[in-house]
């Protein structure tokens, strides 16, 4: 093995170790939730009419009859065999619940990114090309206004316009893609717009700043002086090195979308992970909450890895600097 390969292997092992430590910490924290609750979580969930037998059975299900480290060890062992426990309210396996909900949330996430990037890329490129111009001024003002509008207000506004007034889209609900692709798309539009439009404002502001910095670089000036066309200059020479923060934002979004789209999913009644975890929290369904937390943590770690790899692909200088 060459010294470079050894260094790469060492760095990968180090990253994996750190990721493992993060996941372990998140798992212990998630499994500590019932232990950390003031009073009896069993009584809180079952109510004052619970019999002692019900309380005892519930506490055993939560692993409250053993210490948190023993519970973590047992949970990890089960998790490695694909068993994340069962929902206390429905009795359904948490893995089954997640398998039903994750595709919905991921579909929503991808659609929102398409909306956000579809808007942010052209607007940011035009703004950065002529900073202070009409498009830039309008985009800047629009982005600030957009960022100030809470997601649920935007969502309700979109429902009012498209579903109530124009009646061209459904206000709420969901149709699985496998059942009816067209209906799936119609139900996807409003939640994706609600998430995507807010993200578009963030993306536009971030990308515009990076593009302006890149456009100040001497190699861009040299390319301009050689007569390179605007489109080629922007898309091939400027956009790529400017897109690193954007990749980071999207990477973070993968993880947070699993638990973070609670508001939008509840507003539009989209049966994704957000709606699942919202109901689980209200119903004190700890196994489901724990499953979502741990799976989200895994997604964040995986996304971070992916972003790291993409960084090197987008800008090979990063890899060179570390050699």
């Amino acid at each position: 093995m060459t010294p470079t390969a050894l260094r790469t292997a060492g760095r990968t092992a180090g990253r994996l170790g750190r990721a493992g430590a993060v996941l372990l910490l998140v798992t212990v924290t998630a499994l500590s939730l019932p232990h950390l609750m003031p009073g009896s979580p069993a009584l809180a969930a079952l109510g004052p009419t619970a019999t002692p037998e019900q309380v005892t059975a519930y506490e055993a299900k939560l692993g409250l009859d053993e210490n948190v480290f023993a519970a973590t060890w047992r949970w990890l062992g089960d998790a490695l065999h694909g068993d994340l426990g069962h929902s206390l309210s429905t009795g359904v396996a948490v893995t089954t619940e997640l398998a039903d909900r994750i595709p919905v949330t991921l579909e929503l996430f991808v659609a929102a990114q398409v909306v956000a990037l579809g808007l942010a890329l052209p607007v940011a490129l035009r703004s950065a090309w002529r900073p202070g111009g009409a498009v830039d001024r309008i985009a800047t003002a629009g982005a600030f206004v957009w960022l100030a509008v809470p997601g649920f207000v935007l969502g309700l506004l979109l429902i009012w316009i498209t579903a109530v007034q124009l009646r061209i889209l459904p206000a709420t609900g969901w149709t699985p893609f496998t059942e009816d692709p067209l209906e799936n798309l119609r139900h996807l539009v409003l939640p994706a717009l609600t998430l995507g439009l807010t993200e578009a404002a963030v993306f536009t502001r971030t990308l515009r700043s990076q593009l302006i910095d890149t456009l100040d670089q001497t190699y861009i000036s040299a390319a301009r002086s050689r007569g390179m066309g605007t489109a080629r200059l922007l898309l091939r020479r400027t956009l790529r090195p400017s897109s690193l923060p954007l990749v980071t934002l999207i990477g973070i979004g993968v993880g947070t979308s699993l638990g973070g789209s609670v508001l939008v999913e509840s507003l539009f009644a989209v049966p994704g992970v957000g709606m699942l975890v919202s109901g689980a929290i209200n119903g004190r369904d700890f196994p489901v909450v724990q499953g979502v937390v741990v799976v989200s943590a895994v997604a964040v770690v995986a996304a971070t890895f992916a972003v790291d790899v993409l960084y090197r692909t987008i800008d090979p200088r990063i890899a060179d600097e570390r050699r």
Partner: protein
Amino acid sequence: MKRHTLVLASTVCTAALALTASACSASDDTVSGGGTAASAAKDDGPAVDGGTLRIGLDRPFTKLDPADSTLTSMPLMILANALYDPLMVNGDNGAVQPYLAKSFTPNADATAWTLELREGVTFSDGKPLDAQAVIDHVNRLAKPEAKCACAVDAAGIGGMTVNSPTSVGFTLKSPNAAFPGLFTRSLGYVSEAPAGADNPAVGSGPYTLESVQPGVSATLTRNPSYWGAKGHADKLVYKVLPDADSRYQSLRSGDADLVWAETPSQLKQAPADGLRVATGPGSTSTVVFNTKVAPFDDPRVRKALQYAVDRSAIEKVVYLDQGKVSDGPIGSTSPYRAQGTADYPAHDPAKARALLAEAGHSDLSFEYLVDSRPEGQQRATALQQMFAEAGVKMTIKPLDPANLGTAMFQRKFQVMDFVTSMFGDTDTALASLYMPDAPYNFTGWNNAKAGQAIAAGRSTVDPAQRARSYQEAAQEVVTDAPMLFLTENQVGFLASARTGGLPDVSKRTVVNVSPALLWVKK
């Protein structure tokens, strides 16, 4: 509108606007009025059979089993009533009436009851719903593994016997003249045990389950072997639409035909938006004191806060004049009210200050736990201002429903907001909330006189005597003030103009509608 009410209105609206886009937006020229109930089925023309009725639920259901008390909570009864038939129901003014049962009669001292069933009723799988099925159902829900909140009610049953295939005998451990009322919820929704964890229980209702995604949606089709009148709609599609605003807009957009609603601004605005309203006085807003902790263990402090509250202002500002002022645990439509009402103190901030000074708490301050939803915040803001007029500093602490429930069940609070449907059934409310050892005695209040009066009321089958006993207990509740009563609120259904058969529920303290009665106009 009085000046302080106007000031209060602006304060509450300001607080509400921070929380919801639709709060305080209802126009004042729309229909008002308590009990703006269904313009009603009589205007709907002939019933139409066929089609799909789409119903928006406000909360997720988990198991389609009466053992899960969520399924028989008021907003989900429209789902429970499709799959199951209750033995008893709350009719107008909360009166308990037979539904699937033919009769439910006591012996002389209400320690033994006889339930007579209809003949020829079957579950949707064809098995008979007979006396043994009722006993099996009660026994199943009474077991700890069923996790039914009704287990505490079932625990009062000493024994059950099959008198005949259509007659069940109940022997109680102590007299209970309100025993049939226990069969209006989980215990009364007779079911066969589910065949496995993933399957629903089997009922005898007008519809059967076609498909379900727990917490998300359920599709039901007509039960071909239903014993009673067939449901009008071929299919019922239930969707959980947890956000109140988007649920309302779903109705307006035509995505739903019927939704559950409690938001005052929506109930007021609905007729102007071309929607139909079927509501009843199904909820009461109260303030709960933890009487086990100082200074709320001192009745003078509780009484002072009682004087500080202007209930009319809350009714106008928070509930937009659609409900009524509440004056005690016996609701305004309760059959026990005929004997007279409790003497509820009028708003008097000066008396409040004087009482606080007498109790040595002139600088009283406390934390108020409240639901984080908009109406809760509005109530809390209004109360905060009223208490401030009496020199009391109240800090509002919003909590999600789960944490609020935990604080209440474990009595880890000083004062908290409590909106409940329990007062729709006076018998159950008094026994559950104010008996010293009652499971829902959140206040920790222990009043021997009230306890004796409630027990006396429950042990007599003479309605007049029971009313007198309950009135005596209610007066103790108002006088000793373990709870403050604010308003009786309208709750119920909003429906699109194409929905027919919506019944008049304006006198229903438990808004309980069967979806089999409803149809979709073509």
